[in-house]
C-alpha cells in the first residue's frame, strides 16, 4: 500500500512537470531576446551598444542610419544648415508622430530633449558639444552649435527625443540638475517616454526588460515584403545573460528566440549552424584592432611596428572562423563606403619583409633584449589567441612577446595615458556612432578624437593626417568627404599604428521562426530594432 502511494506521488510529480513543460511550449506571439545587461533605459544616459539596441526599440532617433551610409529622415522630415559656418541647423519634424502616451511629438519635445541631453552631459552627448535650441514653430526646431560641424545631422542618429510633459511630471527633487531635479532619470529607468515601435511594460535593470508592440508607431506595420505567415512580434522580453553556455541551453530548449550580441564560441556557432531549427543572421561586423603604442619602446619605432604587421600570420588566425565571415579588414570595415585596403597586401605572413623592417629599426642589433607587451581583455579567448599567434610569429624573428589579459577595469584604465599603455592593446570596434567613417578616422586618429581606448596608439604628429581629418569634418558634400576618407586611410596606415587581424561579424542566433532583419544597416541599433523582424507563428507551432 505504502509502495503504491510512493508510485502515485512520483507519477503526480512527473505529470505536473510534463503539463508545465507543455504550457511553456504553446506558440505565443512573443520573442525572448538576449541583450547584454541594459544599463540604463534613459536616452540621455544610454551609452554603450547594449543600451543603443534598447533605444532603437523604445524610442526613435531624430534621423536614422541609412543602408548606404549616412542618415535618412526619421522623426525629422527635413533639415538644413541655416548659416554658412555650420553652427546653426534647422530641423523640420514629421507631423503626426505619436508618443506611447498618444500625444503628438512637437518641436517643444525635441528642444527639451536636446537641452536635457546636453544638460545632463552623459551618455552619447559628448560628440555633440554644447548645443542650444530654439523652437521656431510646432514642427520646426533650430539647433545652435558651439563649433561648426558638417556632420551634425549624422550624429543625431543617437539622439532620441522624449516626451517633455511626461518627463517633467516625473522629476524627483532635489537632484543634480537644479530646478529640473533629477531630470526624470529615476522614472525613466523603469518607464519610457518614447515614440519607438515598442513600449516598455517593465524593467528590472540588469535582469529583464518587457515591452509590447506600439500599434500607432509612426512607421506603421505594413506587411509588404513579408510572407503571409510572418507577423509583427507582439511582445518582447529582453533577458540579460552573459554566459553563452547558458544561452546555448536556452536556445536549444526553445526558451530563447533571438540572441543579438553574438558572443558565441566557434563550436557553439557550428552547433547552431548544424541545427535546422536555428538560424544565424549577420548584419554588422566589428573591427578587431590591435593598437601599437607609438610612445613606448620598442613599438615607438615605426620599422619595428611594420615588422609586426608583416610577421603576423593573418591566414592562420582566421582559419576556421572564415566560414562565419571573419576576414579581411582595414581602418574601415570592407562593406563601408570609402573602404581602402591597407598594407600588408596581400594579407599573408611575410617574414622576409618583417626581417627587413627589423633590420631598419634601432633594435636590429639587440633583438634578444627586446620585449613587446601585448595586453588583451581578460576572459576574451579570441583576443588571447591573437596575442599567442603574434607571440609565436615574433619568436621566429627572435623577439619576445609577453601576452597577458588583465580584467577590463585595469585593462581600460591602462589606456588612459601613453605612459601606462602597453605596447599592444586589442579592442573590438563596432559601428556605433555616425557617420561611421568619422568614427573610424577622426575619432580614432585626430588629436581631438575620442582618446582613451579609441586612440591607444598615441600618434598625432603627422600634420598632413590632421589636416585631412579636419577637412573631413568641414566638407559638407558626402561624395567629396568620402574621397577625403579614401585619401587619409593610406596615410594613417603608412605609420603602422595598428594591425587588423580580421573583421568579426556579429552573428545573431535565432529560432527558424524568427525572421529578419528586413534591411541591412551596418550600424549598431537599427538591426536590433524589432520593427524590422517578424515571427512566423505557424512555423513556431510546428517546431514546438
Amino acid at each position, binding site marked *: 500500500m505504502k509502495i503504491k502511494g510512493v508510485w502515485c506521488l512520483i507519477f503526480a510529480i512527473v505529470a505536473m512537470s510534463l503539463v508545465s513543460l507543455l504550457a511553456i511550449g504553446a506558440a505565443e506571439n512573443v520573442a525572448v531576446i538576449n541583450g547584454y545587461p541594459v544599463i540604463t533605459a534613459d536616452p540621455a544616459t544610454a551609452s554603450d551598444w547594449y543600451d543603443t539596441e534598447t533605444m532603437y526599440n523604445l524610442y526613435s532617433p531624430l534621423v536614422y542610419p541609412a543602408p548606404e551610409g549616412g542618415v535618412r529622415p526619421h522623426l525629422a522630415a527635413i533639415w538644413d544648415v541655416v548659416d554658412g559656418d555650420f553652427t546653426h541647423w534647422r530641423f523640420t519634424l514629421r507631423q503626426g508622430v505619436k508618443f506611447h502616451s498618444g500625444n503628438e511629438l512637437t518641436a517643444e519635445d525635441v528642444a527639451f530633449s536636446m537641452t536635457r541631453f546636453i544638460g545632463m552631459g552623459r551618455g552619447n552627448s559628448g*560628440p555633440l558639444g554644447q548645443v542650444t535650441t530654439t523652437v521656431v514653430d510646432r514642427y520646426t526646431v533650430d539647433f545652435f552649435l558651439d563649433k561648426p560641424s558638417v556632420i551634425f545631422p549624422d550624429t543625431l542618429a543617437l539622439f532620441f527625443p522624449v516626451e517633455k510633459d511626461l518627463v517633467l511630471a516625473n522629476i524627483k527633487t532635489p537632484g543634480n540638475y537644479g530646478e529640473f531635479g533629477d531630470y526624470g532619470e529615476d522614472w525613466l529607468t523603469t518607464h519610457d517616454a518614447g515614440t519607438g515601435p515598442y513600449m516598455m511594460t517593465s524593467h528590472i535593470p540588469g535582469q529583464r526588460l518587457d515591452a509590447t508592440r506600439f500599434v500607432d508607431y509612426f512607421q506603421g506595420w505594413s506587411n509588404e515584403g513579408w510572407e503571409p505567415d510572418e507577423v509583427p512580434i507582439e511582445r518582447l522580453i529582453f533577458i540579460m545573460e552573459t554566459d553563452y553556455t547558458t544561452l546555448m541551453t536556452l536556445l536549444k530548449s526553445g526558451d530563447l528566440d533571438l540572441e543579438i550580441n553574438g558572443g558565441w564560441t566557434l563550436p557553439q556557432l557550428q552547433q547552431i549552424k548544424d541545427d535546422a531549427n536555428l538560424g544565424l543572421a549577420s548584419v554588422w561586423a566589428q573591427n578587431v584592432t590591435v593598437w601599437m603604442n607609438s610612445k613606448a619602446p620598442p613599438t615607438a619605432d615605426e620599422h619595428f611596428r611594420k615588422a609586426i604587421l608583416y610577421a603576423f600570420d593573418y591566414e592562420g588566425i582566421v582559419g576556421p572562423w572564415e566560414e562565419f565571415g571573419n576576414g579581411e579588414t582595414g581602418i574601415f570595415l570592407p562593406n563601408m563606403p570609402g573602404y581602402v585596403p591597407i598594407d600588408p597586401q596581400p594579407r599573408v605572413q611575410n617574414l622576409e619583409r618583417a626581417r627587413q623592417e627589423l633590420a631598419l629599426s634601432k633594435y636590429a642589433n639587440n633583438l634578444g633584449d627586446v620585449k613587446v607587451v601585448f595586453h588583451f581583455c581578460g576572459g576574451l579567448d579570441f583576443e588571447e589567441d591573437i596575442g599567442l599567434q603574434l607571440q609565436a610569429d615574433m619568436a621566429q624573428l627572435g623577439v619576445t612577446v609577453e601576452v597577458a589579459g588583465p*580584467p577590463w577595469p585595469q585593462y581600460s584604465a591602462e589606456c588612459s595615458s601613453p605612459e601606462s599603455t602597453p605596447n599592444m592593446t586589442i579592442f573590438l570596434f563596432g559601428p556605433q556612432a555616425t557617420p561611421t567613417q568619422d568614427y573610424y578616422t577622426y575619432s580614432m586618429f585626430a588629436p581631438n578624437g575620442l582618446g582613451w581606448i579609441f586612440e591607444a596608439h598615441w600618434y598625432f604628429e603627422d600634420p598632413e593626417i590632421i589636416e585631412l581629418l579636419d577637412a573631413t569634418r568641414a566638407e559638407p558634400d558626402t561624395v567629396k568627404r568620402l574621397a577625403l576618407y579614401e585619401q587619409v586611410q593610406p596615410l594613417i596606415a603608412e605609420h603602422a599604428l595598428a594591425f587588423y587581424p580580421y573583421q568579426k561579424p556579429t552573428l545573431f542566433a535565432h529560432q527558424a521562426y524568427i525572421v529578419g532583419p528586413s534591411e541591412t544597416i551596418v550600424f549598431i541599433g537599427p538591426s536590433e530594432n524589432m520593427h524590422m523582424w517578424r515571427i512566423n507563428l505557424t512555423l513556431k507551432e510546428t517546431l514546438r
Partner: protein
Amino acid sequence: MLTFIGKRLFQSLFVLFGLSLLIFFIARVMPGDPARAALGFLATEEQVESMREEMHLNDPFHVQYYFWLRNLVRGDLGRSSYTHRPVTTDLIQYIPATFELILFATLISAIVGQVTGVLAGYFRNSWFDGLSRLVSYLGIATPSFVVAIFLLFIFSQVLKLAPGVGRLPIMMTPPRTITGFMIVDSLLAGQPDLALTALKHLILPAISLAVIHIAQEGRITRTSIVENMQKDYITIHKVHGIRTSRIMFKYLLKPSIIPTVTVMGLDFAFLMSNAFLVEIVYMWPGFSRYAVTAMLNKDLNAIVAVVLVIGLTFALVNLLVDIIIMGLDPTVRLRRGGG
C-alpha cells in the same frame, strides 16, 4: 543572554566600521576609472572629469570617506555607477533572491549532511561509511559550478525532470514583490501554483550549492559521532542498558552536531559571496552575481555595500550560531553567563 547579544552586536559595529574603511580604501586603489565606467565609451574627457568631481574622486581619501559615512548615517549607500540606481534599491532587489537560494541550500545540506554523518559515524567502517566517504570526497573535490552544469544538463536538458534557469519560467509574470522571496510572495499573492513552480526552479541550483557542504558537514558530523561514541559516559549508558535510540538522540546527537552547526553558520555566510558561479549558470538574479558585476565594473558604492552586507551576514549568522550552541551545550551557556 541579552547582555551577551548586546555585547556581540556592539562588537560587530566596530568590525563593520573597520571593514568599511578597509574596503573603501581597497576599492579606490583597485585599477580602473569608475567615472569612465559610469559614463560609457563615447564620453568626452571633460565629461569624465566632471563625473570625477561629482563622485568626489579628486578629493583626498579621508574626505571621500567622510562623504560616504555621512550619507550612510542617512541610510544612503550612494548610487551605483553601473545600474544608475541607488545601491539600496539594488540590494533590496538582489539580496532576497540569494537568501532564498542559500537558505534552501543550507536546509538541504543540514538535513542530508547530518543524517549521512550520523549514520556513517554510528555504523563506522560499514559499507555505508565507506560509500559516504567516497561520495563526500567527490563532493568536496567538485566545484559547485561543475555540479550546476552537470545537474542542469542531466535533469533539465536530458531527462526534462526539472526546469532550467531563472527563478520562474521566462514567460511567467512574477508576483508582486513583497518580501522578495519568490515562494513567499507567490503564496502571499494567493498563487500556490506559482509558488510550486518557484520551488521547482530552486531545487537544482540549491542542490548545486549544497553538495560541497553536504560532504563537509557529513564528514564533520561523522568524526564527531565517532569521537563521542568512545567517551565514557556513552559506555556507561550502554552498560546500564539504556536503549540505543535514547543514547543516540539524548546523549550522542546533541554534542556531536555542535561543530557542524558552527561550520553551517560559516558556510551560510560564505555562500552569500560565493554563489555567483551557480547564479550565472542558472541565470539567478542574485546578490552574489551583483557583487561580482560591481567588482568588474569598478562600481565603488556597490563594492563597499556588498562587502558590508557580507560582513553583516557573517556577524549575524555567527551570533545566531553562538546562541544555538549555547542552547545545545550547557557548559558554553554557563561560561557566557547565559544562565
